[in-house]
């Protein structure tokens, strides 16, 4: 299949490197753009959607950093492949549910990827590992600049880039950071932190975006406002807030270590032990246990496993990934067994 080779590479955002990577899993920047004079995807006729798709596929593949990228139409992928791309954060749920006249263009190492005919005609997304929004914006801006040379985007001097939903109008920029905050959860401070973030015009969500649970103590925090501030200021603002959250998580880690070191060690080592010996493992159970192991690695309490191996497990053990590794359809029982097997082998370094 077209997307199979992705399985053999570690995507950029899972590398476990970059600034503050003990707390920040990844940083993401996305830009929403639409063609001038062409109805937005949901309002376009099939003919217009097809025209947009064909024009944009060509333009995107010629853009800076995008030459030689993998371009695939959603309608040509089977259900497992679509789910696989969703699990890797390369496409949205909308792309899975309504695959007609939609494409995704995936750049080298999955750093840049572009969805065509999503809610907006173009959604340019850049992923970075660790806390690295500035670099993400620099790359997104470069791709966008080069797209501007070929495409006339819908733009108004007062309202900026015009998007299907008015919540994205202006810069069309959504910057988000995936944070691992187990200590704020354990010390029951997380709700207070999330509430404060919301008051400051930011949003917090779970691992797989809108409407998902914060499994594995992962929280995605992003800007809400896109109009009235320049891109650099939006990113600067978000960064300042994230730095505060990182500080709170660091303090919570120190406090737990000081006050209940044994309890913490017990929790981490039991999680590690269960993962290394279980034969049946659901995604939900795994997320909780793996989160503890990651905390152990990040705090230097577990030294025989590296962060990248833990990060990769979060994705490789998702349902579609397991089925692609096995090369066949698996039911939920079979998946739970395969998942346990994969985790055991990986954590033992085999």
């Amino acid at each position, binding site marked *: 299949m077209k997307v199979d080779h992705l399985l053999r590479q570690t995507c950029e955002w899972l590398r476990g490197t970059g600034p503050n990577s003990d707390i920040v899993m990844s940083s993401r920047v996305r830009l929403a753009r639409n063609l001038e004079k062409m109805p937005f995807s949901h309002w376009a006729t099939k003919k217009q959607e097809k025209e947009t798709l064909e024009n944009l596929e060509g333009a995107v593949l010629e853009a800076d950093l995008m030459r030689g990228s993998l371009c695939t139409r959603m309608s040509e992928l089977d259900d497992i492949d679509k789910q696989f791309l969703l699990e890797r954060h390369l496409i949205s749920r909308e792309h899975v549910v309504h695959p007609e006249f939609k494409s995704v263009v995936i750049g080298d190492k999955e750093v840049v990827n572009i969805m065509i005919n999503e809610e907006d005609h173009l959604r340019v997304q850049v992923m970075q590992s660790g806390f690295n929004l500035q670099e993400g914006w620099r790359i997104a801006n470069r791709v966008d600049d080069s797209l501007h040379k070929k495409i006339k985007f819908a733009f108004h001097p007062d309202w900026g880039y015009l998007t299907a*939903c008015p919540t994205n109008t202006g810069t069309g920029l959504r910057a988000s950071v995936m944070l691992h905050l187990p200590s704020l959860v354990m010390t029951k401070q997380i709700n207070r932190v999330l509430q404060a973030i919301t008051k400051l015009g930011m949003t917090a969500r779970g691992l797989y975006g809108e409407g998902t649970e914060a499994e594995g103590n992962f929280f995605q925090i992003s800007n809400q406002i896109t109009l009235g501030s320049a891109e650099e200021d939006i990113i600067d603002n978000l960064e300042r807030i994230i730095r505060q959250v990182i500080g709170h998580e660091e303090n919570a880690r120190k406090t737990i270590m000081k006050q209940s070191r044994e309890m913490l060690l017990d929790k981490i080592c039991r999680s590690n032990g269960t993962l290394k010996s279980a034969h049946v493992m659901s995604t939900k159970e795994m997320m909780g246990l793996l989160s503890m192991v990651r905390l152990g690695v990040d705090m230097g309490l577990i030294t025989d496993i590296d962060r990248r191996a833990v990060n990769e497990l979060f994705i490789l053990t998702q349902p579609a990934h397991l089925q692609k590794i096995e090369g066949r359809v698996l039911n939920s029982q079979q998946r739970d067994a395969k998942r346990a097997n994969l985790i055991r082998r990986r954590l033992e370094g085999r």
Partner: protein
Amino acid sequence: MLCDECGKVKATVHLTEIINDQITKLNLCEVCAKQKGSDVEQHFGIADLLAALSDVESEPPAQGGVPASKNKCAQCGLTYEDFKKVGRLGCGECYTAFRASLVPLLKRIHGSNQHLGKSPSPSSIKELKLSTKIHEELEAAKQDLLKAVKKEEFEEAAALRDKIKFLEKKIREAKV
């Protein structure tokens, strides 16, 4: 009536869901309703929120006496009612067509209605500003024409008709 989920506690929350035209009724106790809460929230989409926000502003009637909600975007045919239902605009031109209602909505969402970030290259901005100005002038002239006809001010109407023709010609020539 007992809770449909746990079957143990008296149901106090009654939920009606419509998914793909199928109506399901759920009677839940408070605990189960809370657990189900996240599912329920997802069905309350952005369209509802936007509709609520845009209704807060009293809808200014468009010039010429047509209520803004019946206004149609000349380019894509979307009405303001459509927008309120789906929470998405139809095309870039909709922003100008529904300007009167959208400006306060944008202000409510973002706390601002003035873009400060990146723009297409300076030359295309100039072009755009000109294009936007002509389109807005044309829209105003059309509304004035309707008013003039209504008031039977035919001299005024004739002048406006010429102005519209001139502006339309300018748009065609410049392809802006």
